[in-house]
């Protein structure tokens, strides 16, 4: 059966999330070998990537991509603000956590344990907002500590040396948190949970079918339908090349992430 399609992510969103994927996987692949230098897989991965110094250069290259997408996103938000786009900082389309997110979280937990119906999520469910803000937290903490460790003699002109001790602990632990979170929780929420298993291509195609939209974000769909604005986001079905692209990039990313998290867990349990 053919279904109508609507845009959920525009090209800019998708390119930026593509940069997030590339830089995040790159940082994980080039950072973990150093953190896990004492393990066989860490040493092997480091060697495969050209040793710790080459791996370090690659790591900083991906860090630059991170800083770039982060700036591009801030610029994007700034542009929306300058355009006086309504509802950026509050309202149903905003990323800002709001009371109804807390309500929906409670409703969702009640739904998990069979005490109520599935909450009717809007454009951004609470876990999606969490993921979004986690990037702000992660980039500032890991990026900031990473810059300290990148230019230690520069920062030591005005910062005491113990900040580098803090930076080492924070950079390493926060990276473990980020990697662990993305490769398990985000993967599950976004792709691996049975309703979406094994891959939700929406972040690559930008397009969502009406049925999926109504299932995942019914409040948003119905609001736009009510306001007669569905036509504004109407899309053609994703072409084959785009779906194949989604599969290649998506499954590759999932495979890299799951492999890495499996290695991390295996090392921790060993």
């Amino acid at each position, binding site marked *: 059966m053919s279904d109508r399609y609507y845009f959920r992510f525009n090209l800019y969103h998708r390119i930026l999330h593509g940069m997030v994927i590339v830089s995040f996987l790159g940082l994980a692949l080039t950072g973990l070998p150093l953190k896990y230098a004492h393990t066989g897989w860490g040493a092997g991965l480091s060697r495969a990537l050209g040793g710790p110094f080459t791996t370090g250069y690659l790591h900083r290259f991906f860090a630059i991509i991170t800083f770039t997408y982060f700036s591009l996103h801030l610029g994007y938000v700034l542009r929306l603000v300058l355009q006086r786009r309504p509802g950026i900082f509050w309202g149903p389309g905003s990323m800002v956590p709001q009371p109804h997110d807390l309500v929906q979280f409670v409703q969702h937990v009640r739904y998990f344990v069979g005490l109520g119906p599935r909450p009717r999520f809007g454009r951004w469910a609470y876990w999606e907002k969490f993921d979004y803000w986690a990037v702000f937290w992660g980039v500032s903490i890991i990026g900031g500590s990473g810059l300290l460790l990148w230019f230690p003699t520069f920062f030591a002109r005005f910062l005491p040396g113990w900040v580098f001790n803090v930076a080492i602990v924070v950079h390493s632990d926060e990276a473990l948190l980020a990697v662990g979170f993305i490769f398990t929780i985000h993967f599950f929420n976004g792709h691996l949970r049975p309703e*979406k298993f094994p891959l939700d291509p929406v972040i690559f195609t930008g397009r969502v079918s009406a049925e999926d939209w109504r299932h995942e974000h019914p409040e948003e769909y119905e609001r736009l339908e009510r306001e007669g604005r569905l036509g504004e986001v109407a899309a053609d079905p994703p072409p084959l090349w785009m779906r194949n692209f989604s599969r290649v990039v998506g499954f590759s990313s999932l495979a890299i992430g799951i492999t890495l998290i499996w290695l991390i867990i295996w090392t921790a349990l060993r």
Partner: protein
Amino acid sequence: MPQGLSRALVAAAVLGAALASGAAEAAAQAPTTEDCLACHADRDLKREKPARGQPASLFVDGTALGASAHGALECVACHRTATAPHERLPRVRCADCHDKVEPALAEGAHGRRGAQARAPAPTCTACHGTHDVRPVAAFSIDTCATCHAGQVRQYRESIHGASRRRGDSEAATCRSCHGAAHALLAKSDPRAPTYHLNLPRTCAACHADPELAKRHNIAVGAVYQLYMDSIHGRAVTRSGLLVAANCSDCHGAHDIKPHTAPTSRVFRANVPGTCGACHAGVLKDYAQSIHGREAARGSARAPVCTDCHSAHQIRRTEAAPWQLDVIRECGTCHAESLRTYRDTFHGKVTTLGFARVAKCADCHGSHTIQSTSDPRSAVASANIVATCRQCHLAATPKFTQFQPHADPTNRARFPGLYYVWLFMTLLLVGTFSFFGLHTLLWLPRSLADRLRRGRSQPDPEP
């Protein structure tokens, strides 16, 4: 009886007997042993004009002669020109019979003109005796001790000598290292088995055999192979460096002793002095270091040269493999410091096999190492900026406040870092617990949802 008269009588008797047998001429030219002993059995028979360096007595012990290796020979076999009676005979030439020995002897140290001119000279008779010439089996170290008394005395106290005394037939004797006596070469001769560059192979005749090491409780089995791959072994065998240590430079030669003997050159307390015999500058630094001072005080835990450098596997210190291995070596005593070092970038890069970052000695020094509380230490506050600047050219005093051996889990020593670590740990545990539970609760509901709805509509292929 006056000498002249007795000789005349003997001559007359011999002549008479010869005539009686009808072979006068032959007998006159080749007297029998009996004929000779007729005079020479006289204990008082002496030369009329004693020659320098030769015994005055002309007495020949017939019993000893008969029991000797030459017992079956007539006197004339050696004293070829002897007639009865006779005047002074030319010196016996052993080489007339033992013709294979002569060239070897002429090559060797014992046959050299200089040696032969010495007194006592290593002539054939000096070792083998004259009329009492002994079979080779009867030779002993005492034969060598006649001239080489000092060396033999040292040898008797050595591990080789002691083992021999205990009845160990495998233990080395003079010949084992120096070769057979006739062709024996001085150690200054490049062909000698004891020549500086040849000695390792000579020792290896026994000590390259792991089975021998096992039989004799020698700790290092493959010692020869290890040595040959070491910087000393390569210098000796590849470069022919006469100043590079061979076996005897460290272990001694005649006085070689097990490393457990306090008088051994390789006894723990003597190791710095032994290495310092060549590495004098290093020894001077080491002696003033915390390690050297502690070792000199008799501390069994303070490292001596071989603890870091090993004994037989000494490698180039400029090369990465050794520089990386020695980090672990430091950690055998400084375990806590090694553990915290491994948490840093420096420690992780060296773990990955790259030596281009700071290793223990880069900050603490090696032979000059001092306690961190010592003002002479490279990491003491007066020196640490310069130490960091070896790599971090723009290092400032603030930069040096970095704790390269911090332990975030140690609240007493690093309280600030501890609370950062605690916060991060709680953040991780909290986040993963929260979302882990969230996921686990969601999974069955999502599965049920999927089963009820079926998979989201398959995309129509365009």
